[in-house]
């Protein structure tokens, strides 16, 4: 399969209304299938809405939830990415994205990075995932799922690409903010997202598929602007801002091979170098290894030297000095 029609479901989920959102998913999956799509992508927490706060536990589902199974049942010969609050067996709540294919759940990605700053408060309500894996797919290319903030950490697209992903799929509930007229597209959030997505596509020589929701939850407006970007970094499609819709984009999956032969960045990656240096940095932060960038006199694991050791509180045990 080298030609693929991608359907981006840029929807406005209703906050906390699982059944209504589920019905919308069913409707749009049918519509996408009728339009000949092979991959349908829904936004982050499309089944629940974003700003859930204490509602999170009330709309959470387990992976064996029959309502999720009804969606999987719609995926004969189809790949669909949906997102919801997943409750684990030990009752942790995750923001999850699931790849549904041929009637089953093929892969689940739990959001790794939970923004808890500025207007975000996710860590208060959710647990962070611990696994990052690319997944094979019926589409014949490896897929890498990520949820919103996961893409604001450069390791995520790189690891997914090294793990075999040729198409990175980011599902988002990104609130639009910063309307300064100097922004390229009139919206600061959109400008930064577009910059990083083009960069990731180019650096990982992979397709980037971005599905962002629209609508409002409380004070915040989600800007949409869903996109598909080619492995060259060239945007193939940009959905309108703030408008609901099911947008289809045709891509040629052979573009990945072409770009990777022409620009063999992934071939030349040095994962062993990254692992070595990461291990050193982790050891330095943990005080297990001398820190090359710390001030003279700083204790292990601390990068700043205390002003006057005599002033230290009673009981403080100074560690070994370099």
């Amino acid at each position, binding site marked *: 399969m080298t030609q693929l029609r991608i359907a981006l479901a840029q929807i406005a989920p209703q906050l906390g209304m699982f059944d209504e959102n589920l019905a919308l998913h069913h409707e749009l999956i049918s519509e996408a299938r009728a339009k000949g799509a092979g991959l349908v992508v829904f936004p982050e927490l499309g089944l629940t809405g974003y700003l859930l706060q204490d509602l999170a536990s009330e709309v959470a589902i387990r992976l064996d939830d029959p309502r999720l199974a009804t969606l999987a049942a719609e995926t004969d010969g189809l790949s669909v990415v949906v997102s919801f609050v997943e409750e684990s067996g030990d009752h942790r709540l995750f923001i999850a994205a699931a790849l549904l294919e041929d009637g089953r759940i093929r892969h689940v990605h739990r959001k790794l990075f939970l923004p808890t700053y500025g207007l975000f408060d996710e860590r208060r309500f959710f647990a962070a995932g611990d696994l990052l894996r690319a997944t094979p797919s019926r589409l014949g290319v490896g897929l890498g799922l990520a949820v919103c903030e996961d893409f604001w950490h450069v390791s995520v697209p790189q690891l997914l690409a090294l793990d075999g992903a040729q198409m990175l799929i980011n599902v988002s509930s990104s609130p*639009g903010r910063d309307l*300064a*007229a*100097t922004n390229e597209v009139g919206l600061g959030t959109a400008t930064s997202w577009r910059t990083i997505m083009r960069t990731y596509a180019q650096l990982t020589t992979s397709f980037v598929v971005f599905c962002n929701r629209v609508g*409002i939850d409380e004070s915040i407006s989600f800007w949409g602007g869903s996109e598909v970007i080619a492995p060259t970094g060239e945007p193939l499609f940009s959905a309108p801002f703030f408008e609901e819709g099911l947008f289809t984009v045709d891509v040629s999956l052979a573009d990945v091979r072409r770009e990777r032969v022409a620009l063999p960045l992934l071939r030349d990656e040095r994962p062993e170098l990254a692992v070595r240096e990461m291990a050193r940095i982790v050891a330095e932060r943990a005080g297990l290894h001398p820190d090359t960038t710390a001030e003279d006199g700083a204790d292990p694991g601390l990068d700043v030297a205390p002003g006057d050791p005599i002033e230290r509180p009673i009981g403080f045990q100074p560690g070994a000095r370099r």
Partner: protein
Amino acid sequence: MTAVPSVTDTGGLFELPAELAIDTDIARRVIGQFIRGQLRQAGFDKAVLGLSGGIDSALVAYLTAEAIGAGKLLCVMMPYRASSPASRADAEEVVRRLGSASEVVDISPTVDAFFADDPDATPLRRGNFMARQRMAVLYDRSVTWGGLVVGTGNKTESLIGYTTLFGDSACAFNPIGDLYKSQVRQIAAAMGVPEQIITKAPSADLWPGQTDESEAGFSYPVLDRLLFWRIDKRRSIDELVEMGFDGALVERVDRMVATSEFKRQVPPIAKLGPRTAGVDYLYPRRRPGSARG
């Protein structure tokens, strides 16, 4: 150091500091979506607001009419006998251009009755009472009109505390509360709000000749820039002085912002039980079951 920016051309209507210029098309779309979403989630399709003749309420009337249609908007004019007739005429011009429903409620009898035995009441007390009287009228009309009360306060006045608690700041939602005065003017100009409303000196209209800028002692463009760099862009006082702002003014505005913090927040509840609203009982205002039946 950040260079002192130039001023964006606004055709001479008003002064718009360059760093405050926004994309007004996007602002209108976000605000329109916000207004429709707030109403839908509450189970309403109509809105009511107090129209003073000033730019803030005029802009909110335009934005609300654009979002839901003028036929779903009730503009209530609530003059006091000392209010400027020019303000009233400007408010009527807005209603005429939009074609919205409107009503005039004279608050003089209630206000005068309340202060009849208290002739020494200060202008501040009288002004606050009038603002709360207008709030009471709007919430009554919210019932008779069947619409939510739309807030008309801007970010500048909210940050410096130039509002009456439970008065003009009371509303169901506020579409322009994150816009500085200069940005209110920018959108108003883009939407075709009558020019005389954009160009006249902002006033609380509590007594003849009163203007915000003479009362506060600074101009909106300067104040807006100061607040933008201090709050949105997290610049220190020293950095603002380096940029050319007057140090005494920066410190004075800092104090105004700090002393009015309480006006921008929900009153604290003494934490006693296992779950307390706003502390560890945290639900969206609008959630399943929250819309009126």
